[in-house]
Each structure stands twice: as structure tokens, then as C-alpha cells.
């Protein structure tokens, strides 16, 4: 807010100069230049709409029902129509067509994909949310209070050693172990993924805080006697957000892939929840008979994960001043 007031004031005094852009405008301008990143963003917006629509249309006002079993209509290819005489009207899909076909139980694939989009996306967001939270807290503490001694180690060493311990475990193997040993639940998966992927964020935040702490504006704030909490949250965190945002975007992509890998091994989200991962895992048994059951979720995951990665890279270019000048 202060930036735009500042910009307005400058514009008044010096009408010949172009109005300087706010950091947000500059960010968007650079991001916009990367065509792929913009396409990725569009895809993600569609995904968001689909996921929300999915939640609404499959659970609240049931226009598409992912759970209805229609055995007479199993293994129907995409865009085929429902067998009117065999299926009661209540169970018929919208407009009498199976947009993406049916699976081995006659369930509407389109409805399942729609429901799955919400679940997959929420797994991604919550898992990343947890990991970012942990990462910011630990990284921030290590960066800001790093030299404070607790017993025989500094805060920084303590936290960094802990990070090293976590890194010692092969991530996927660890997730698999925990998920397999605990009762199967979607929340367990989210929490476990979140608990095992915070190291990167913690590193970034710590690095940013270490550099920021030495910078003049922080020293100035301290000289003014501002309380530490205010310094951290109002002044340092906004500057450290950039790499966190970027790794969060890529983190969601990786969480979705992890979930699909877990489903493939049989430890993913259990029925009746549909996720793209378990639709894909189920579909692998029918590659020859009903290839769409395998390809549709696979391509969907590919497109969405790709979109996240592209957007993440676009953010990296936009945030990184060094690369910007080229």
C-alpha cells in the first residue's frame, strides 16, 4: 500500500517520469513474459474451478455421481451413451452420455475424475501447507536466533542437525512405511507428506533470514527499538516469501505425484474417496481392455503436475533479480 502511495506522490511531482511500478506489477510483467508459465497458470485456474465444481457437483447437488455402480454399463468407452433400457433413470448420467466412459464397476469416470480433482488438490495443498508452516518456523528460528546458545549448541546448529536427521531417511520409503503402518486415512497421508517435505523450505527461509538479518533495514529497525516479533513478521517474512512460494508450488506437484505413487503400491487413499492416483492405479489392470481408464487419469496428472512446475519456474524467474537482466 505504501508503495502505491509513494508512486502516486512521485507521479505528481515529476510528471515527465513514468510511474514506477509496484513490486507486484513488476513480478507480473516478468511472469507474463514466460508463455509456458502463463499457460500453466491458466490450466491451474481451470483445475481450481474443476475441483470446486467437483466438490459441489458430486457431493452437494449431485449432478454427477461418482459412486453409482452400473454393472450392465461397465467398460464403456468415452462419449458412449448409456443403455437406456438397462439403467434406471435415476442412475443415468447427464445427457445420457458417459463423457469419459465407465470403469470396471460401471462408474462414471468423468464424475470420479471430478471428485478426484478436489481430493488430489486438497491433499497437495494441505500437505504443502503443513510443510511450509514447519519450514518457515524452523527456518526462521534458525536464521534469526541462530547464534543463541541452548546448552552446548546454538539454535542454528540444533535445527540444522535435526534437518540433517530428517534428510537421512529416504523420503518416499519413510512415507510408505508410516502410511502402511498407520490405519489408512486421507488425513494421515496429508500429514505424513507434510511432515517429511519441509527441509527445503526451512533451508530457504533460513538462508533468506541470514542475509536479511545483516541488512541495514533490519539493523535500523532494531535501532529504533521495534519489538522483535514485529521485525520478523512485518519486515523479514515478506522478503523471504519468494523462494517459499516457489518451492510450495513445486511441492504441490510433488505431493500429487507422491500420492499417485502410494496409490500404485496400494497404500494411497482408500475407497470410496477417489483420487486421480487411485483411479490410475485401478486402471492399470485394464490397459488392454479399457485403455481410457489408464490414460485419462495419467494424462490428467501429467498436465496438472506440469502446470504446477511451469508456474513454479515462472515464479522463480520473476523473483530472481539476477536472472532478470538477461
Amino acid at each position, binding site marked *: 500500500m505504501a508503495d502505491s502511495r509513494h508512486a502516486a506522490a512521485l507521479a505528481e511531482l515529476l510528471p515527465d517520469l513514468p510511474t514506477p511500478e509496484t513490486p507486484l506489477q513488476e513480478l507480473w510483467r516478468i511472469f507474463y513474459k514466460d508463455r509456458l508459465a502463463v499457460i500453466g497458470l491458466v490450466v491451474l485456474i481451470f483445475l481450481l474451478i474443476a475441483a470446486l465444481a467437483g466438490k459441489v457437483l458430486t457431493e452437494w447437488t449431485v449432478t454427477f455421481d461418482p459412486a453409482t455402480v452400473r454393472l450392465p454399463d461397465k467398460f464403456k468407452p468415452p462419449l458412449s451413451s448409456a443403455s437406456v433400457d438397462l439403467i434406471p433413470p435415476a442412475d443415468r448420467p447427464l445427457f445420457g452420455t458417459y463423457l469419459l466412459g465407465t470403469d470396471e464397476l460401471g462408474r462414471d469416470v468423468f464424475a470420479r475424475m471430478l471428485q478426484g480433482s478436489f481430493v488430489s488438490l486438497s491433499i497437495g495443498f494441505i500437505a504443502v501447507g503443513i510443510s511450509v508452516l514447519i519450514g518457515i518456523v524452523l527456518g526462521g528460528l534458525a536464521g534469526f536466533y541462530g547464534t543463541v546458545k541452548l546448552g552446548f549448541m546454538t539454535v542454528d546448529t540444533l535445527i540444522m*542437525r535435526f534437518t*540433517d536427521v530428517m534428510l*537421512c531417511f529416504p523420503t518416499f520409503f519413510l512415507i510408505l512405511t508410516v502410511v502402511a*503402518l498407520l*490405519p489408512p486415512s486421507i488425513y494421515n497421508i496429508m500429514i505424513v507428506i507434510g511432515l517429511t517435505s519441509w527441509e527445503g523450505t526451512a533451508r530457504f527461509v533460513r538462508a533468506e533470514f541470514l542475509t536479511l538479518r545483516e541488512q541495514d533495514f533490519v539493523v535500523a529497525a532494531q535501532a529504533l527499538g521495534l519489538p522483535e516479533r514485529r521485525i520478523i513478521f512485518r519486515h523479514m517474512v515478506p522478503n523471504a516469501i519468494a523462494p517459499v512460494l516457489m518451492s510450495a508450488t513445486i511441492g504441490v506437484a510433488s505431493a500429487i505425484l507422491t500420492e499417485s505413487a502410494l496409490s500404485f503400491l496400494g497404500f494411497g487413499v482408500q475407497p470410496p474417496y477417489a483420487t486421480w492416483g487411485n483411479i490410475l492405479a485401478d486402471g492399470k489392470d485394464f*490397459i488392454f481392455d479399457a485403455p481410457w481408464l489408464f490414460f485419462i487419469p*495419467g494424462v490428467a*496428472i501429467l498436465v496438472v503436475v*506440469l502446470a504446477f*512446475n511451469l508456474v513454479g519456474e515462472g515464479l522463480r524467474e520473476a523473483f530472481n533479480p539476477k536472472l532478470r537482466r538477461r
Partner: protein
Amino acid sequence: MWAFILRNILQRLLLLVFVSILAHSVAHLAPGQPSEVDPSNPRMKPEDIARIRAAFHLDEPLHLQYVYWMRDLATGELKSFKDSQPVLPKIWQRFLNSLPLFICETLIIWSLSFPIGIYAAVRRGSAYDRTSTFVAYTLISIPGFFLSYLVILWVVSTFNVPVIGMKTFGMEDAQPVFRWMDRLWHLVIPSLMSAVAGIAILSRYVRSQMLEVIGQDYVRTARAKGLPEDAVIYHHALRNALLPFVTMFGFLLPGLIGGSVIFEQIFAWPGLGRLGYEAILNRDFPVILTLNFIAAVLTLAGTFVSDILYAVVDPRIRLQ
């Protein structure tokens, strides 16, 4: 230098202890019984259950169990819950199976990533650069097993050859040459598929490192000296760009266990990853814990090697 090494090793040993304790606690805090001890199994009589629990020290307090585990591991006496066979020989056997796959995959990743990444950096913004960037992102984004199945389907239908498993059934009677060729052939697709994501990631990293180095002042000095462009890129720039990769070399070791679970499952490759997966299914704690422990040892050894290598190749650190 020696003080540096010693301190490094000691720190890692300490870390290893913490890691093993953590792993042990996590595994045993999970609800449920180990495989042998299945209350729902009608053939299990209560006395048998009690006997098995006693044999595996399952009724002792947690820290005592930890001591037992460590002791058995060190003496080689550690036995699997599933079939009471010693754990270490099992792991060793599977390790030998995983090793060729791992070596092959690593060779493919490292030999392809560098040329791809360097070329993209030198030709920044060109059609090659943009295409390879897009391809890299796509390969990172494909679920591993999705791509593998597609490739398997394509190879099997086009070439009509087997791809699953380590060797073709019934090949034991064939001559050594054919057996070796069969083995090699079975190695190709799995290692290629395992390598795909690694190539995509590493080549991007190579590219960004090269770009950063090419922008440095000393590269400009090299050009101002009138050196041929090849010398500027491959002598001055590359030597600096390679520094961080030397350290990454150390991180390769832990990959032996972690990444292979999925691919060994797809290709029915009897390796370490598959062993881990089976152990998890069977709640075979000794095997799970030992694998985790070995993974931790590999990670710590790997990072240790990285630190040493970094000190060797970067003169700025060496002389501290």
C-alpha cells in the same frame, strides 16, 4: 585437514545414533502386530503368540528393544519377523540384485545430463533450449509408473520381447553368452525408466549452474584475453560450474534404496526396494528398521564423501 575429517566423522556417527533411535521409535509406535503374530490367524494358539513375542522381545520396554536390535544387528543375528531368517544376508542378496540397476541408471543420468544441460546453457533461448526445457518439465511431471507402463506396452508390442524381471525364465540352460545378453537386455528398460526423472532434473540444474557461471566477471576476462570460445566455456566456465556437482555425487548413494521401490515393483526386479516394500506389507520390523538404518548410513557416508570431495576440488576451501 585431518581434524576436519575426524570432526566430520564424529558428527555423523552421532547423527546416526539419533536417526536409528528415531526410526526405531517410529516403527514400534505404530499399532498392530508383526507378521508372525497375527491374532486373527486361527492356527495361532495363545501360547505360540506368547512364545513368539518373547522370542522377539516384543514385551520389553522400548529402549531395551532398541538395545536388542542394535546388538543383534551388530552380531549379524538379527532375524526377520516373517520367516525367522537372518536379515543381513537377505539384504545383501537383494543389494547385489539392485546394484547393476543402480549403476546403470546412474551412468545414464550423469553421462546424458551434462551434455544436454551445457548445450542448453550455451545456446540460451534457442529452439533447442526451449524444447529441451519443455521436455525436461514433462518428464519430471509424468508419474513414473505411467511412463513405464506405456514404454513396456510399446516395447512388448513392437519388438515382442520380454521386459519384466531380471532374466527370462528357463535361460539357465543356455550358454553364458546368451545368458549375459539376456541379463543386459533386462537391465535396459528399468534403468532407463529410473533414469528419466533424474536426467530431467540434473540437466536443468547443470543448465542453471552453467548460466550463472557464464555470467561471471572472470568469464568476461577470459574472453577479453582473446581465448577461443571453446576454452572459455569448457575450460574456464565448466570447471567452476562443476564444483557443486562433485558434492551431489555423494548424494547418489542413498538413492539405492529410496527411489527404486516403484520401479522394482513395476519390473518385478528382486532388489532392495522390493524387499522394503514386502517388509512393509508384512510388518517385518527388523527388515524395515535395518533398511532405514542402512539408508541413513548411506546418506551420511554419501554426504561425508561430498564434503571431502568439495574440499579437494575447490581451492578456496582447501586452504582454510
